[in-house]
């Protein structure tokens, strides 16, 4: 069974997913960060493939993307960094990125590599659902890779139902109309949106992302969904880290309130 599917079968609450950018702050930090997140108890990790034009991302992640590219990060190199790491870690892995580098790598070749190195799912925000269904679904399935879809406060209920029908694993619930890192905290209006989605009784669990940064926001978000996703706040942690592993461990523990 896919490790993401398995995770959500076993754990229904307080699922913590952490995003970081591959090749940042240093080119070879990718696996150090991955191992530290695994050891410190993150339930899921999302490795960002840096892109020159990340239109859904705010300044913090844009900057991390640019530094990683300047460091020489690429899709090819990411697969080399991840090769052989799977036996040493248990956490399910998602790759997050924009569609163009994946297209240039070749969709089938990309999915094949994901399977080889033990990646479990993809988040490609600019891959439209209809293009996925028509052209790529069969390929993803062949290699056992899940495609994670996003919903936002503006997504219509009809579309949410459709996304739920074609999703596996979980649905990425964007907490507000924004790019990453733009807002922090959770407002009453957002809570109303979370309740509205809960009332739809979807078949897939949801993780709430955007604006989650610490124990308070993680706990609040988790009370409305299976868990939450931290991105920009974690990038700030690795940017300022003196000792990557120790600082990551401390951050994860603090978010989980341990």
């Amino acid at each position, binding site marked *: 069974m896919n490790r993401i599917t398995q995770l959500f079968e076993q754990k229904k609450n307080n699922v913590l997913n952490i995003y970081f950018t591959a090749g940042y702050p240093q080119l070879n930090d990718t696996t150090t960060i991955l191992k530290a997140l695994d050891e410190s108890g993150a339930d899921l990790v999302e490795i960002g493939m840096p*892109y*020159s*034009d*990340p*239109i*859904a991302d*705010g*300044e913090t992640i*844009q900057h991390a993307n*640019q530094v990683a*590219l300047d460091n020489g990060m*690429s*899709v*090819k190199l990411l697969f080399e960094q991840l090769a052989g790491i799977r036996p040493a870690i248990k956490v399910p892995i998602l790759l997050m990125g*924009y*569609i*163009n*580098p*994946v*297209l*240039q*790598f070749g969709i089938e070749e990309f999915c094949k590599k994901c399977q080889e190195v033990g990646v479990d799912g993809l988040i490609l*925000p*600019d*891959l*439209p659902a209809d*293009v996925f269904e028509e052209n790529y679904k069969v390929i993803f399935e062949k290699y056992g890779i899940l495609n994670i*879809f*996003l*919903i*936002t406060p*503006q*997504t*219509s209920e009809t*579309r949410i139902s459709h996304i739920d029908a074609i999703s596996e694993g979980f649905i990425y619930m*964007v907490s507000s*109309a*924004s*790019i990453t890192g*733009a807002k922090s905290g959770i407002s009453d209006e957002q809570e109303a949106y979370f309740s509205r989605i809960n009332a739809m009784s979807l078949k897939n669990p949801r993780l709430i992302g955007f604006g989650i940064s610490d124990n308070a926001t993680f706990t609040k978000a988790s009370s409305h969904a299976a868990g939450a996703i931290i991105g920009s706040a974690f990038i700030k942690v690795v940017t300022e880290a003196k000792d990557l592993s120790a600082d990551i461990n401390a951050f994860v523990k603090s978010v989980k309130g341990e």
Partner: protein
Amino acid sequence: MTTAQQYNVNEKGYYGEFGGAFIPEMLYPNVEELKNNYLSIINDPAFKAEFDALLKDYVGRPTPLFLAERLSEKYNTTIYLKREDLCHTGAHKVNNTIGQALLAKRLGKRRIVAETGAGQHGVATATVCALMGLECIVYMGEIDIERQAPNVARMKMLGAEVRAAKSGSKTLKDATNDAMRHWINNPVDTHYIIGSVVGPHPYPDMVARFQSIISEEIKWQLQEKTGTTNPDYVIACVGGGSNAAGAFYHFLDDAQTQLVAAEAGGHGISSGFSAATTFLGKPGVLHGSRSILMQTEDGQVVEPHSISAGLDYPGIGPMHAHLFDTKRAKFFAITDEAALKAGFQLSKLEGIIPALESAHALAALEELGAQPNETVVVNLSGRGDKDLATYMKHL
């Protein structure tokens, strides 16, 4: 067999294998709203009447089709210039901004966001926002803000807020990224006026329709002057491709008219400093559509170079990718040097100072090999006032 739809967009938003809407979910409702409404709005007689009246009385259309006698003599053929440089604000860009601003009002939007490179689209957007009482925010690359200072001043005087795009290369592509991010953050009350035939469907088709007035006029004007609607060649420069799309639109299915696209060759296509997308690019996705794109092997978008800020873009609209792919249009890469020379030449021969972008279209005359009995229409997309500093450096 040629069908009427062969070179134009299909019902799914594609031109051949190019186009589509590759957008994050955050933009889906906005783009869907546009897609579901743009045709009915544009085809509404009341909209048409308002659009046509503004084009006539505010922009100054129809723009003249001018027989350039001394230029014709120089190339030993017959050359007409389509004078988009005489549009209010100095370029074709205003045809599109009027159309989109009217559309935005009908969609109930009160704020406009736009990107700009040379500043021409920014000025055209700020202008119509002033005219229609809409709030206006323009993103412009930090580097372009420096090299296009007069247009920055114009936008400010027109009441727009100019925001510097500080990410990436700090030019047009990054201004476009930031305008899209702004739209993601303000999905309900804001309309994004894209300045060229790029972006997710329906933008390329919508912008092409607003610009298609150019070829509509060329047809009847040429008929009046020569007794025939179709020239042998139509030449236009291609940044994103909006003036070219407008100049080609009503000739797309007329095989007797050769379509000619002039891309910015920069220092030369193998120099590493070029914006000649069809010569250097591969199929890929940027700013919401699948098209041809200058990129690394890893799929990272490459920094283009052109002496003309309006052509300094690493992609082209999906319509043009399709025209290239099907060989319906012939593409030339015009160097900075050739464009400058053509700009000085037109100034001296005809008393018209062209925009550096338009000078690329004029330079294509050198390589075209038009015959004495043939007719060429060059789309003069804009005037050169904004480029005087650059021209003077090379005098």
